[in-house]
């Protein structure tokens, strides 16, 4: 029916949940109707508002091409936040600015980094990867050798076990999406499947685990079940097409898709097949989570289903009533995202969000939902489900199971690991957005 879409009025856009959430297909139904809804005017009325003229950059030839490109000079504010900018002798964190990015992968310079003792300056020609222990024959690989092996590429998020820890605070923390969720990123990783190398070393039947160790000054080590190693573990050499960044493990890291970030050992230099886990510092202490009972979870492994809204979010002020796209990322260490719902009334009613295709396992899925803000108070939330049937827990559910802090911690503290509950953004009539509980 030609023309039928253009005749739709703003009131025709289907409201599917409270406080102005619209049907997720609204954006696909017809640009004219949507534009009408956003501006309050029809397209034909909107053209004559200003006199266009050439700006200086259009009047002369532009800049020279550079050997290695960087963002436009107007994007200088799109950077990671640093927890330890002077490199004092303790862990450094660089958090991804999710509110300033869109799409499904993280640019390499903005991928989150946690460095427990600084990034080692590794000469790739001298780096070695040893595989030994319960194998038929121990082998050592150079980078040149690994570069000749068959490679695979896959999208995968990497998330620190402590990402989103501020959500365990008893009261909301005045912080943005970068501070709360900045320790997860997503990239396309390319490398050699670990199973390919283990075919060459052979595996002693007694081997059930491996210990992976880095060439950093801490020789950081983690124990990994051999089943995971043979399922989808990769010796990653490339990140979004270029060699892995120093902060992400140059010249190679262990990639365990969907599993706790710290287990994805950077600067990988040694893999030892063993019968039982080593109970290394990070697995027996740091990433074991105290429960309200006083017991603690260990071997959490999986980064469970999570989502959060990036637009709007704190720092992105709404400029007035009208139509907005609510957008964010969802991911699960258990596979693909199957559904994301969005609420604008603090969880009383929900609308299904559109998922950006392709939806890939253990990778960011961008979700989007159209929303007409009436200028009143609103509380935005997202909730994700994965193909294994797991639902992202509500705050009430996770507090009942996992507890919350007794006092409000520093936004940089890690009072909890693997705390994958919903995030609520409160929108004030001024358009300001802040972290709230609902």
């Amino acid at each position, binding site marked *: 029916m030609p023309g039928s879409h253009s005749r739709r009025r703003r009131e025709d856009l289907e409201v599917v949940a409270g406080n102005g959430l619209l049907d997720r297909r609204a954006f696909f139904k017809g640009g004219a109707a949507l534009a009408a809804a956003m501006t309050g005017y029809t397209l034909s009325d909107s053209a004559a508002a200003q006199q266009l003229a050439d700006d200086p950059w259009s009047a002369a030839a532009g800049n020279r091409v550079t050997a290695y490109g960087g963002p436009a000079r107007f994007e200088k504010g799109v950077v990671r936040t640093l927890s330890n900018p002077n490199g004092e002798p303790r862990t450094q964190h660089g958090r991804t600015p999710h509110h300033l990015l869109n799409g499904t992968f993280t640019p390499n310079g903005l991928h989150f980094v946690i460095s427990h003792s600084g990034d080692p300056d590794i000469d790739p020609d001298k780096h070695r990867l040893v595989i030994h222990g319960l194998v038929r024959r121990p082998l050592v690989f150079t980078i040149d050798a690994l570069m000749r092996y068959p490679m695979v590429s896959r999208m995968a998020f990497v998330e620190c076990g402590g990402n989103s820890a501020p959500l365990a605070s008893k009261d909301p923390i005045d912080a943005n999406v970068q501070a709360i969720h900045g320790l997860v990123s997503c990239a396309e990783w390319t490398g050699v499947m670990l199973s390919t190398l283990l075919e060459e070393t052979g595996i002693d039947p007694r081997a059930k685990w491996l210990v992976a160790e880095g060439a950093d000054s801490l020789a950081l080590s983690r124990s990994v079940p051999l089943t995971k190693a043979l*399922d989808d573990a990769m010796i990653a050499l490339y990140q979004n097409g270029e060699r892995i960044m120093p902060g992400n493990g140059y010249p190679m890291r262990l990639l365990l898709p969907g599993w706790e970030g710290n287990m994805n050992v950077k600067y990988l230099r040694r893999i030892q097949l063993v019968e039982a886990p080593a109970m290394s510092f990070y697995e027996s202490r740091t990433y074991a989570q105290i429960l309200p009972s006083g017991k603690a979870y260990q071997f959490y492994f999986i980064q469970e289903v999570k989502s959060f809204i990036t637009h709007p979010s704190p720092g992105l002020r709404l400029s007035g009533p009208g139509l907005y796209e609510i957008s964010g990322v969802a991911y699960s260490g258990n596979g693909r995202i199957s559904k994301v719902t969005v609420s604008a009334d603090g969880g009383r009613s929900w609308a299904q969000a559109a998922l950006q295709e392709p939806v890939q396992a253990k990778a960011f899925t961008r979700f989007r939902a159209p929303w007409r803000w009436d200028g009143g108070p609103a509380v935005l939330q997202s909730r994700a489900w994965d193909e294994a049937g797991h639902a992202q827990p509500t705050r009430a559910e996770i507090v009942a199971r996992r507890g919350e802090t007794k006092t409000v911690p520093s936004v940089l503290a890690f009072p909890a690991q693997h705390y994958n509950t919903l995030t609520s953004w409160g929108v004030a009539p001024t358009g300001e957005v802040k972290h709230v509980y609902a």
Partner: protein
Amino acid sequence: MSTRSLRSAAVLVALALGAGAAFGQGPNLGKPISPAEIAAWDISVMPNGAGLPPGSGTPAQGAPIYAQKCAACHGENGKGGVSAALVGGQPLTAGIETTKTIANFWPHATTLFDFTRRAMPWPKPRTLTNDEVYALTAYMLALNKIIGEHEVMNAQTLPKVRMPNRDGFIVRFPDRMP
């Protein structure tokens, strides 16, 4: 058993039984390496004591090494400084954000040896002798009254040390454990 586990198990069996047949199918660019060549990197210590080197140390031997090489960050007598305290700790029932310490949290004494040897002291990791690491391990365990003032720590005694929170853990996903 999940499909994934079955697939992994099948690969495992194939690799274990047919590894000889698998040789030659890949590029085979790994070079054989001997245990002696790996020795300097082969530093993981297991809870059962596997990987512990020869040597020994006592709390009294550890005290002066601690004062010289550790106290600047971890404070006098392990009380804490710019880096974590090594002594004391609240009960874990005090709250989910309770600071995890050697006494209230660490399940295995071998981890103390492993992490001290691989990562400490911060400015010069892996410069301590094995005797020094045993002595520092003994010193920290004695400070926390987990061992006596005169106990000797070595490859035989250290794995037998019973940590207070040894049974304080729940495996999160038992189905993912080998």
